[in-house]
């Protein structure tokens, strides 16, 4: 193996976006038939580096060698020709196209569509057999789950006969089950002799599947080690530059009286499909109720109803007072007034306005607050000051209130949302996917904040597809499947396996 040429070798890659040096003189070599992990904080430069390898961005300096040959990759076309495929962090699919159309796009043979599609359909079946990548070729992308969408991205790469596959934060949006399936697939691909680069924030995955791993910090490659010769703790330290607690340490909860009381909650969407079927649940002061479940089983709807912006029938009580579920009073603002804070699942679409400056985002939703206003006018300087304080306390980087939300990394974007919602010290905090796409340094911090809030005697409803997260944070775990609550467990008395079954719809008794 030593004398064999590396599948990929990068030499002295540098890239700046305007003033930001995203990559500084980076060199790595990845051997064929191996899985190479890349970890690093948000904004460390991982995605940029890979985008350069895939010809999406052009490097300012540096050389690329593919299996020994020096290769210039001016655009994605060249990358594809060189046998490189990439699954981006934010998928690059045409939402209203079918799976098949997305796969042939750019790889059609001939001017006419029909033959290309027919051929693709055949190849697709073969690929499905080979790697059990199951997707309905005629499904519309926006109607299939993220897991399936990601399989489409992988199929896209394989359809283009990629030998080198790059995955940027592939499991960020997947359930454990889906993640395990993904890793089985990656395993197969490795056996086939394909080379894989895996960017992730989850050390468990690194340890589980990679052969070698590189660590990036502030645009530089700080270390490359054999996975077998390292430990999560060491990696975490390399990555963040300090010791990181990988487990949440929390005292047992002292539940107080009921804060959130939900009875027979139902939601029917405009297509007449039942999204929530008679949900009953309670959250007490000083406890965290975790809602586990595969994405798309009603968790989002539950949060939106409780958050006040989806119509529903049934009863929702906060501190004993009935919340309107339709018409006037059924909106985020009134909910906030009655002591409910909400960290939405999708920070980029709902939690933040990406074009707004950080300080505007901190005021967002609370812009009526007396503290932010002087008479009829808003007191922007007050908001800015408050934002600086919050950024300080939540250690948002860079701590610059004037910077637009879109220019913060995912982790820091999430911190801004949390700062806004937690600092209101609400009676009830609704929080969805708190650490999706966020680096471990930030995860540790966010988890601490959540627990701290609980210890102040607040009620917290946590929705996450990360079982690990659910288990480590929650005091009680409820599992949702197909708009229903399949069962409730105590973290101490259950495990990922049992929950996995519940999430798959195997009812509590059976499990």
């Amino acid at each position: 193996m030593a004398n064999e040429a590396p599948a990929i070798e990068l030499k002295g890659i540098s890239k700046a976006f305007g003033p930001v040096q995203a990559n500084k003189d980076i060199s790595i070599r990845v051997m064929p038939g191996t899985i190479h992990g890349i970890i690093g904080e948000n904004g460390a430069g991982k995605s940029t580096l890979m985008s350069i390898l895939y010809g999406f961005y052009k490097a300012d300096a540096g050389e690329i060698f593919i299996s020994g040959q020096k290769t210039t990759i001016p655009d994605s076309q060249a990358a594809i020709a060189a046998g490189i495929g990439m699954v981006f962090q934010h998928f690059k699919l045409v939402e209203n196209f079918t799976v098949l159309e997305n796969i042939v796009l750019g790889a059609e043979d001939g001017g006419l569509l029909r033959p290309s599609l027919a051929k693709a359909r055949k190849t697709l079946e073969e690929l499905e057999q080979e790697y059990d990548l199951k997707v309905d070729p005629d499904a519309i992308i926006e109607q299939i789950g993220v897991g399936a969408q990601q399989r489409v991205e992988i199929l896209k790469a394989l359809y283009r006969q990629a030998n080198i596959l790059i995955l940027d934060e592939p499991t960020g949006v997947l359930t454990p089950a889906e993640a395990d399936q993904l890793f089985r697939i990656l395993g197969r691909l490795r056996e086939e002799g394909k080379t894989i680069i895996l960017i992730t924030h989850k050390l468990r995955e690194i340890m589980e599947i990679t052969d070698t791993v590189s660590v990036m910090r502030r645009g530089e490659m700080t270390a490359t080690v054999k996975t077998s010769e390292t430990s999560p703790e060491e990696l975490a330290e390399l990555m963040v530059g300090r010791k990181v607690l990988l487990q949440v340490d929390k005292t047992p909860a002292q539940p107080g009286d009921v804060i959130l009381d939900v009875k027979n909650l139902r939601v029917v969407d405009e297509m007449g499909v039942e999204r929530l079927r008679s949900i009953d649940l309670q959250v007490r002061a000083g406890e965290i109720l975790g809602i586990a479940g595969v994405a798309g089983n009603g968790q989002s709807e539950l949060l939106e109803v409780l958050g006040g912006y989806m119509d529903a029938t049934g009863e929702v009580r906060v501190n004993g007072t009935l919340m309107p579920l339709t018409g006037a009073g059924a909106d985020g603002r009134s909910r906030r007034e009655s002591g409910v804070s909400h960290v939405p699942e999708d920070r980029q679409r709902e939690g933040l306005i990406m074009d707004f400056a950080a300080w505007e985002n901190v005021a967002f939703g609370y812009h009526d607050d007396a503290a932010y206003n002087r008479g009829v006018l808003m007191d922007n300087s007050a908001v800015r000051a408050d934002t600086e304080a919050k950024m300080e306390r939540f250690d948002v980087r860079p701590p610059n209130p004037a910077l637009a939300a879109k220019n913060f990394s995912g982790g820091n974007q999430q911190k801004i949302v949390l700062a806004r919602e937690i600092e209101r010290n609400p009676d009830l905090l609704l929080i969805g996917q708190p650490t999706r796409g966020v680096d471990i340094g930030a995860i540790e911090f966010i988890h601490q904040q959540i627990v701290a809030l609980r210890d102040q005697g607040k009620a917290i409803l946590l929705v996450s597809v990360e079982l690990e997260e659910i288990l480590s944070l929650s005091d009680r775990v409820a599992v949702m499947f197909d708009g229903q609550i399949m069962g409730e467990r105590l973290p101490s008395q259950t495990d990922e396996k049992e929950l996995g079954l519940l999430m798959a719809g195997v009812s509590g008794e059976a499990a």
Partner: protein
Amino acid sequence: MDVVPKWAEVTLIPIISLLLAAIFSAIVIIAIGEDPLNALKIMVQGAFGSTYGWGYTLYYATNFMFTGLAFAVAFHASLFNIGGEGQALLGGLGVALVCLLVPWPHWTIALLFAMIGGAAFGALWAAIPAWLQAKRGSHIVITTIMFNFIGAAVLNYMLVNVLKPKGSQDPATARFAEAVHLPTLHDILAPFGIAFSKSTPANVSLFIALAACVLVWLLIWRTRLGFEIRAFGKSQSAARYAGISGVRITMIAMLISGGLAGLMAINNVMGEAERLVLNPTEGAGFLGIAVALMGRSHPFGVFLAAILFGFLYQGGAELAFFTSIPREMIIVIQALVIMFTGALDNMVRMPLERIFLALRGKEVR
């Protein structure tokens, strides 16, 4: 993450863009066998060379400020209100009715009510498309286009069949009473010992337009409502999460927008013509779109763009007086200005960015 510093953004880029527009205009003028430098001299002289020129420049600018602001407000809510023309027409009707139906004792009171009338009619004309957009999802671009045509017909009907004085050949209302004539800049500045040309249409409305700029700025950047309008405009999904009602914002933004467009009438109808004629707006509503977009929907930008177009209008008129350059040449120049300052700005910005990057290349992290 902007590379080009603010000062350059607001000075260098527009100036270079204008230069480019001027150069291309010159090429066209040469092509039709005229002398561009002379033309430029005439335009600048005519527009800024005398209080007389200023009077007209500011008069046109006033119109554009109103319609520009109107478009900008709606645009902040990501509503593309092409209906400024029709809303301004109806505003004219409102102003005319106010001025004709009541024997006003003094222009101040008349102006106050004329403003209410104009704004109300303009807002009304915007309200229907707004409601259709908010409630029925009918595309506001179509509905406002349609309402421009409908507004023109309404005005035509009112003038020809209702408001036209009997026996007059001119499809226009009677002249407004002396009492409601607005003081011109001449009247206003005289007390301060400033001799301003007597025969220009610029009038108090100018100051109302300026006030409107300030108020709109406050509204958009300093009030809760403005915050909500911008939030809704940037991300409807986020607005929904925050409990900002889309219907409410759509209606309010469009009402304000239509109201501002309608307000224009106090300048052209009450201030200048002092009666309501056919087609009193003469495309100011459409030009407002360009003015707003060029001004980046910021009141101050709108103000500058409005002055610029006031200059082009007045300078253009002078050009027509003193040369045989066809009047359509002015439209060409306007087009080039809009193109270069509004749409091709990156053509200037990109090279500048490279320069500035090179300058501060050292201090990159």
